[in-house]
């Protein structure tokens, strides 16, 4: 593949056109990916800021940093921002948008203008959310349970609900684009069985986005109508049922967690083979496991409602199904580990994030087994045990996968190398900070500390202090990449086409790629992850 001379200004998607209009009206999937990168990073830091305030308040048992109402808004908005404005879009909208066409050998996604529309919907939703937060906020919890959200809360529920409703369309359109692209725009020779598993993961994620998101959309519409017009659909004093809300809400929100984790798993499945120099162990099973997770993920929603007042028999069924969905996740962990067997392993930053992901996702997933056990769940549901469980998966899993992916593909996206030693340092800081923040919360949960508590009995303090200490370390770990990624855009080493010697069509074009991705449309006649035929990594060039 041609690599440009250092001095000649090669045309890439970054320099093909300059000016704010060329960015705001772009239909290039790569530029849209960067637009998303900026926006979700912004919301990540807002959500993170709320988290820091929460942890600061929880340093002491008394409620002494903020008022109770403020605290309730903090955890609500932390959850809403992190789930809807960071985690759900993150990997699909940034890495997925950038890489899906490249990985399958296409020039762009199937619907480039819809892709841009998707970003604008996200921005509109984000602006509405920001406005809501700045003019009073919302305090219902990200779960919006009725009748509190429809008939009792005095905060801006309607505005927050509408913001999330709009963001849902952004998600749906991204999923729609990916499914059509993967079905219809693969390069010649790129059969389903030769697709990178990152693509399989995004395909599965997109199915969930398409089928699940509309349900939360209509549920939020009903909540908004109920609150505005006092309808009674979820209000028992008017003949309605609050449990109906919970069923409708969790029907989306459970599959939503798979939207958040599957793409990360896809990232890890690209990183591990590359830095073990061998193909993924059990390609077909890993692909199948992604699809299985998407399908079974739709069948388990009421495991969030074991003590909510559902029938005993419903609880039994949902508990059993929840164990079923754990199997494909376990299979992935085993396959990643088996890939390392007899590999040739290096410890680059992406690989460190992959290790971190596997370890933390494993722990988060194992604690899911606790929660699916009915007898245990009665004790630990709605406590810090659940909070720890989902943060292990979403932060220890999804965010680490996201960061690992950002490091892995940064050379491709920006044409620059980030500083490797700082990268490794940040990965270790994140891992250590994360564990210190969230492991104590498992203990707190089993002890009985409920979630969403502004104040708590004094015997819980020591563990809370440990958790807060960890969160400050975690914050440092997250700030570092922000700083050095920006630094690298100016001062980083120029990246070659394939600094890691990785398999995949994206590495067969220049770093950064040209606007239409490939100088010549690729024709594929090799299997995925054929590391036995890929040469060792090139040296990155120095200079600026």
């Amino acid at each position: 593949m041609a690599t440009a001379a250092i001095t000649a200004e090669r045309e890439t998607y970054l320099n093909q056109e300059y000016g704010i209009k060329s960015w705001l009206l772009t239909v290039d999937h790569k530029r849209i990916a960067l637009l998303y990168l900026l926006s979700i990073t912004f919301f990540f830091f807002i959500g993170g800021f709320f988290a820091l305030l929460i942890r600061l308040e929880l340093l002491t048992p008394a409620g002494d940093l903020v008022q109770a109402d403020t605290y309730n808004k903090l955890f609500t908005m932390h959850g809403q921002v992190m789930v809807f404005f960071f985690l759900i879009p993150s990997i699909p909208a940034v890495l997925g948008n950038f890489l899906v066409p490249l990985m399958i050998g296409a020039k762009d996604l199937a619907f480039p203008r819809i892709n841009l529309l998707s970003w604008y919907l996200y921005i509109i939703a984000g602006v509405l959310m920001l406005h809501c937060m700045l003019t009073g906020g919302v305090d219902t919890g990200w779960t919006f349970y009725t009748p509190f959200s429809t008939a009792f809360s005095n905060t801006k529920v309607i505005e927050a609900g509408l913001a999330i409703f709009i963001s849902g369309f952004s998600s749906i359109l991204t999923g729609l684009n990916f499914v059509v692209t993967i079905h219809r725009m693969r390069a010649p020779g790129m059969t389903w069985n030769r697709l990178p598993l990152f693509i399989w993961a995004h395909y599965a994620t997109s199915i969930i986005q398409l089928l699940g998101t509309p349900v939360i959309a209509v549920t939020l519409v009903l909540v908004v109508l109920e609150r505005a017009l006092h309808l009674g659909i979820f209000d028992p004093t008017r003949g309605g049922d609050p449990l109906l809300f919970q069923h409708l809400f969790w029907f989306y929100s459970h599959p939503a967690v798979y939207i958040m984790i599957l793409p990360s798993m896809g990232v890890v499945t690209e990183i591990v083979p590359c830095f073990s120099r061998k193909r993924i162990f059990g390609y077909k099973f890993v692909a199948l496991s992604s699809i299985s997770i998407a399908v079974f993920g739709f069948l388990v929603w009421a495991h969030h409602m074991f003590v909510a007042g559902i029938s005993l028999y419903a609880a039994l069924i949902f508990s059993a199904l929840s164990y079923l969905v754990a199997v494909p996740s376990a299979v992935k962990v085993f396959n990643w580990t088996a890939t390392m067997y007899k590999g040739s392993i290096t410890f680059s930053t992406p690989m460190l994030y992959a290790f971190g992901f596997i370890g933390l996702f494993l722990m988060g997933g194992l604690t899911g087994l606790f929660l699916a056990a009915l007898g245990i769940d009665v004790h630990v549901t709605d406590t810090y045990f659940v909070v720890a469980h989902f943060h292990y998966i979403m932060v220890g899993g999804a965010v680490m996968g996201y960061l690992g992916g950002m490091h892995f593909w940064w050379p491709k996206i920006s044409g620059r190398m980030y500083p490797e030693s700082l990268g490794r340092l940040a990965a270790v800081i994140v891992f250590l900070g994360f564990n210190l923040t969230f492991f104590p919360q498992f203990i707190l949960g089993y002890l009985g500390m409920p979630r969403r508590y502004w104040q708590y009995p004094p015997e819980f303090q020591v563990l809370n202090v440990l958790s807060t200490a960890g969160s400050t370390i975690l914050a440092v770990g997250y700030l570092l990449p922000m700083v050095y990624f920006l630094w690298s855009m100016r001062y980083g080493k120029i990246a070659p086409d394939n600094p890691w010697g990785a398999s995949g069509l994206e590495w067969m074009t220049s770093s950064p790629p040209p606007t239409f991705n490939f100088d010549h449309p690729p024709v594929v006649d090799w299997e995925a992850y054929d590391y036995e035929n890929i040469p060792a990594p090139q040296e990155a060039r120095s200079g600026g």
Partner: protein
Amino acid sequence: MYDTFPLWPARASTTAGSVDALFIFLVILSAMVSVAIFAAIVLFAVRYRRRRGVTAEPIEGSTALEITWSVIPLGIFIVIFLWGAVIYFKERTPPRGATEVYVVAKQWMWKLQHEEGQREINELHVPVGRDVKMILTSQDVIHSFYVPAFRIKQDVLPGRYTTAWFRPTKAGIYHLFCAEYCGSQHSGMIGQVVVLESAQYEAWLSGGAASGSMASSGESIFQQLGCSTCHRSDTQGRGPNLAGLFGKPVQLEDGRVLTADENYIRESILTPGAKIVSGFKPIMPVFQGLVSEEQLNALVAYVKSLNPSSSGAAGSPAAVPSGAKPQETKVQ
């Protein structure tokens, strides 16, 4: 009362032991699996680190291995599921003859009333070794009644009853938390469960309110609201005879057959048109908005007391010392 740095919650109910047993099993299992995977990863990372001249061995996979490590975990999961299900089944099946406590949750306090009539706010006194069944409802939003030491939790809903039960095994004072976010003072909606030895409990009980048992309050309300004009104790009434009704099947005019449980009694008072008993006309007035939650609870307790085998005996206050004899059994 509490350790400054506890790592394990107090164990004070019959359920707590079984829950802890499964939990410890899962902790050990998780530790073993984690250690195994971490060890494998570390081992491979060291043993197979990049070395000059050594290439990776291309391995496609192994269907046998995939099936093995799908089936074995599934088998283990089934065991965990069954174990958890058994515990849950027991937790959701209150034993017969349990003492009943009616709980009304509201933003942001717990109002409890014993069968015998004692009212408590944010505190629940119970004796060691006796089954206690709680019948819970909310006046406003969803709350959740959580006693970590008993390992029980049950969401409390507006507009219907939910139930939970426990049998305390150890005297002491244990946290009561609200575990479903309910607004401003959610974290302030806490209290305590005070488990007393039998004798102390009897003493506490007799020192309580002179208002009479819940069933007898219920009977007064039943008279005051005119229920007895139609619900007579013979077959001549315009409404069904309520004696022996509770817990039995009821045939409705649309053919359905239901069990007359607490929720059925409650609904029949608040929106009688929802379920008409076969053979009767839909003429019962609507009492929604005319009775408070506490009055509803008392009426439910009264209807229960009309069963011939109930501990309260038909229509009369329970045999437990109540306000009827305050002076003799006053607390020491």
